[in-house]
């Protein structure tokens, strides 16, 4: 991917490069530090410090119960106590999101290429599949994957079990696939048609044109919206708790129950979950904005 991008910048691969003024390639400069960053880093530091404190061996349950009776734990102490447990759940969310993104991108590219196929029936069915999965709510697709995929299947006498978390990954990969397909179609359409003509006049076969000329140029255009999509799918992984896959929100509910189900703990616990996602997704969205500005593409 990066090779292709570098290649394209090389004058030899841009026949008209000599006619154009040399384009300045600004390095991606670091953002200037402002108060907001400081607040952000302090918040992250608090989370990390909290988990470090909580790494200390837990007190025996009896003592904990006693302590609870003596003085009910403050919201902060509850969060500090359970942070490692909750963060483990959060890491599971990240794993799901990365797996779903990888799977969805792979099939999404295939589907997107199907949308520009020369064969009418491939083009139409790819378009239909894309629109169908793009317009269905993500939670409904997740239900779809959980209920419609069997919990195991047998190939050549070997039984392969499909655990719930795997089905959830497929459930999240479906909307990713549809969105990537649409992004790819948009990116290809936005390329000047001269690129196709030029390739054809150089006797490139269609497959090679797509692989060597069209797709590398699409990568740059697709990167910001693709990152945006990743951030969205990461935030969507909490939906897995609704269909019974144990991730951060499931654990949050468990922690809440374990702490006696006190109503005033809801806000801090869900606030903590929100903070974790914020700390992960906000830098991604900042980077996306910078890339957008740099490539000057609109999502």
């Amino acid at each position, binding site marked *: 991917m990066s090779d292709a991008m570098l290649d394209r910048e090389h004058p030899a691969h841009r026949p008209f490069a000599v006619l154009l003024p040399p384009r300045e390639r600004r390095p991606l400069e670091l953002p200037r530090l402002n108060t907001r960053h400081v607040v952000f880093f302090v918040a992250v530091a608090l989370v990390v410090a909290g988990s470090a404190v909580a790494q200390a061996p837990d007190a025996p349950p009896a003592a904990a119960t006693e302590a609870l009776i003596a003085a009910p734990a403050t919201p902060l102490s509850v969060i500090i106590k359970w942070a490692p447990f909750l963060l483990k759940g959060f890491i599971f969310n990240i794993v799901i999101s990365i797996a779903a993104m990888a799977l969805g991108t792979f099939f999404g590219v295939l589907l997107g290429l199907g949308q520009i196929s020369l064969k009418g029936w491939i083009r139409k069915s790819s378009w239909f599949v894309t629109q169908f999965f793009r317009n*269905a709510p993500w939670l*409904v697709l997740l*239900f779809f994957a959980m209920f419609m995929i069997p919990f195991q299947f047998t190939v050549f006498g070997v039984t392969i079990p499909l655990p719930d978390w795997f089905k959830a990954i497929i459930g999240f990969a479906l909307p990713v696939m549809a969105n990537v397909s649409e992004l790819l179609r948009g990116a290809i359409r936005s390329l000047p048609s001269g690129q196709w003509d030029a390739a054809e006049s150089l006797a490139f076969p269609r497959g090679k044109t797509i692989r060597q000329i069209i797709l590398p140029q699409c990568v740059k255009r697709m990167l910001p919206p693709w990152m945006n999509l990743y951030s969205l799918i990461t*935030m969507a992984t909490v*939906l897995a708790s609704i269909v019974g896959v144990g991730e951060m929100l499931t654990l949050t509910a468990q922690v809440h129950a374990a702490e006696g189900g006190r109503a005033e703990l809801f806000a801090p616990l869900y606030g903590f*979950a929100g903070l974790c996602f914020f700390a992960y997704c906000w830098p991604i969205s900042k980077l996306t904005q910078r890339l957008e500005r740099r490539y000057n593409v609109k999502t």
Partner: protein
Amino acid sequence: MEALAEWGRALYEATGINLTILYDQFDQSRFISGIWMTIYLSIISLFFSVIIGVVGAWAQGSPIKAVRWAINGFIVLFRNTPPLVQIFFFYFGISNLLPYVEDADGMRAPLFTNIQWAIISLSLFAGAFNIEIFRSGIEAVPKSTLEAAEALGYTRLGAYRHIVLPLAIRVCLPALNNNLVNLLKTTSLAYAIAVPELLYASKQIWTDAQNVPTMMVVLLLTYVALVGVLVWAMNAWERSMAVPGYGQGRGR
């Protein structure tokens, strides 16, 4: 109606495809009220999210730094946390911090119902996106157009009403449409706090009737149809607002 029910029963006997919503009165009414609930949630949240968007975009141009900060903080926070966590945070977290009221039977009831909380969180979530959309629309109106209005004697408010807003709306319609379609899809999250919308009703039906695959397909098709209607309506609106020679060739 009777014919449809008859057909549903025949279909079940012939193929095993069990569409209880066609012949079972109870399932049918559950399903239809689920659809209405989804539409209701969408329209009310859509309304409030657009208000939040307009007011927020206006407040973002405020000379007071604290106001601008607050709006930006709101946008960044609501765009970068999972909407489900937002709903839980409001419904479980905030709801418990608010005072309780007495309902008609003298029972202690929370200030807002789950449906109201769903509307509040969905409006805030979609509103955060709308603010940015509207602001970029207003920024897209050239300063010189505003100057021309001023030279014709328009006051600031008059110029906004007659010139800037009509132009801004046209610029941001595509992005706004996208966001509103997203809002419609996001209403399914209200399922998690037991709002009897489309997904919730469907799940009840397939649990009772044991027709998961059939109902699943019906559910997906219903959502796709709802989104389709919204997209069609918004496109029609976009077309009716289109002005020859303005705003063409923009976007992708």
